[in-house]
C-alpha cells in the first residue's frame, strides 16, 4: 500500500517534471526561443510566442521544443504552425501574390518619392538657370537700365570721397 502510494507520488512528480521547460539543454532552449520569437501568440496578438505567458503560447512552445527534439527543422515547424493557424502566426509573412503589396509597397513608395524629388530638383534648376540668363542678357529695357545706372551712380557717389568727383 505504502509502496503503491510512493510510486504514484513519484509518477506524478515525474509527469509534472515533463511539463516544465527543460532547462538542462541550453542549446535546445536557445533554438526554441529563436523560433518562438518569430511566431505570433494567437491570444495576445502583439506578442511573440517567446514573450507570451498565455496558456496557448506555453503549449505551442512545448510543441516547438518537442518537434526540435524529434529532429524537425525550423522550416518544418513553421509549416506545421501555418497549417493550423495560418500565415498570421508568422511575424514575417511569406512573399506570395496576396502579400506582394505588403512587401513591395514601401519600396514602391520610396522609388516614387525619389522620382518626384529628382523631377522637382531638375525643374527648379531649369527655372533658376533661365532666371540667371534673363538677368545677364539685354532683356532690360531702357527705363530699367536708366534706373540701374542712377542707383549705381548714387551708391558710387556716396561711397567715394567728393574730391575725386571733380
Amino acid at each position, binding site marked *: 500500500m505504502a509502496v503503491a502510494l510512493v510510486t504514484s507520488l513519484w509518477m506524478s512528480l515525474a509527469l509534472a517534471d515533463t511539463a516544465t521547460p527543460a532547462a538542462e539543454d541550453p542549446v535546445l532552449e536557445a533554438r526554441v526561443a529563436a523560433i518562438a520569437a518569430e511566431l505570433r501568440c*494567437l*491570444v495576445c*496578438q502583439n506578442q511573440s510566442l517567446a514573450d507570451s505567458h498565455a*496558456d*496557448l503560447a506555453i*503549449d*505551442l512552445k512545448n*510543441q516547438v521544443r518537442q518537434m526540435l527534439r524529434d529532429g524537425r527543422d525550423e522550416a518544418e515547424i513553421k509549416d506545421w504552425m*501555418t*497549417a*493550423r*493557424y*495560418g*500565415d*498570421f502566426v508568422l511575424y514575417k509573412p511569406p512573399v506570395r501574390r496576396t502579400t506582394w503589396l505588403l512587401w513591395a509597397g514601401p519600396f514602391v513608395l520610396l522609388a516614387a518619392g525619389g522620382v518626384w524629388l529628382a523631377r522637382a530638383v531638375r525643374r527648379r534648376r531649369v*527655372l533658376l538657370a*533661365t532666371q540667371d540668363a*534673363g538677368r545677364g542678357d539685354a*532683356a532690360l529695357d531702357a527705363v530699367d537700365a536708366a534706373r540701374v545706372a542712377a542707383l549705381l551712380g548714387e551708391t558710387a557717389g556716396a561711397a567715394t570721397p567728393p574730391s575725386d568727383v571733380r
Partner: protein
Amino acid sequence: MTPSRAVRRPPRGAVAWKFLVPLALFAVLVAFLGIGLTRDPKNLPSPLIDKPAPAFSLATLAAPERVMTPADMRGKVWLLNVWASWCAACRIEHPLMVELAKSGVVPIVGFNFKDDPQAARRWLGELGDPYVVSVTDRDGRVGIEYGVYGAPETFLVDRDGVIRFKQVGPITPEVLRDRILPLVRQLQG
C-alpha cells in the same frame, strides 16, 4: 513679364489641384484606417477551411472509457463546438447551442478544451447539454491540431468530413441565421 516666364508659371487650376494631393492621400489613409477599425483582429481566417477535419480519438465526457472520432460522424453534417467551463464567452453562447440542439437541425459535438471533466460535467448539468456527445481534450493537443486559440470556436463539418466554416468567438443569432443555417441546409440538401 518675359514670355518664357509666362510659360513656366502653371495655370491657376493646376496649382489648386496640386495642393489637393496631400489631402486626397490623407483621405485614402483615413478610409483604410476606418475600414481597419470595423474589422475584428481576433477573427483570423482559418487555413483549415475546405480541409479534412483533423482526426482524433478522444475520451467522451460522459463515459471516459468510450472513445469518439470524427469518422463516427461520416455521412452527417455536424458542428464541432469548442467549449470549456472556464470560458466565460461559452456561457454567453450556450443558450443558443441548447436552442439549436432542440430544433434538431444539425447535431453538435462538444469539444471540451483543456478543462477539468468534473467541472465540465457540472457546467452541462447546470446549463443544459446540447451535445450529442462531448469529447475531452485535457492537454489541448487536439485543439492545436484544429488551430484553436480561443474558446468558444465552432467548426461546421460536411458529410465527407471536410471543414466548411469556422466561427471564432460565440455564435450570435445573426451568424447562426445568416451564415451557419443556410450552409447547413445547402450541405444537407
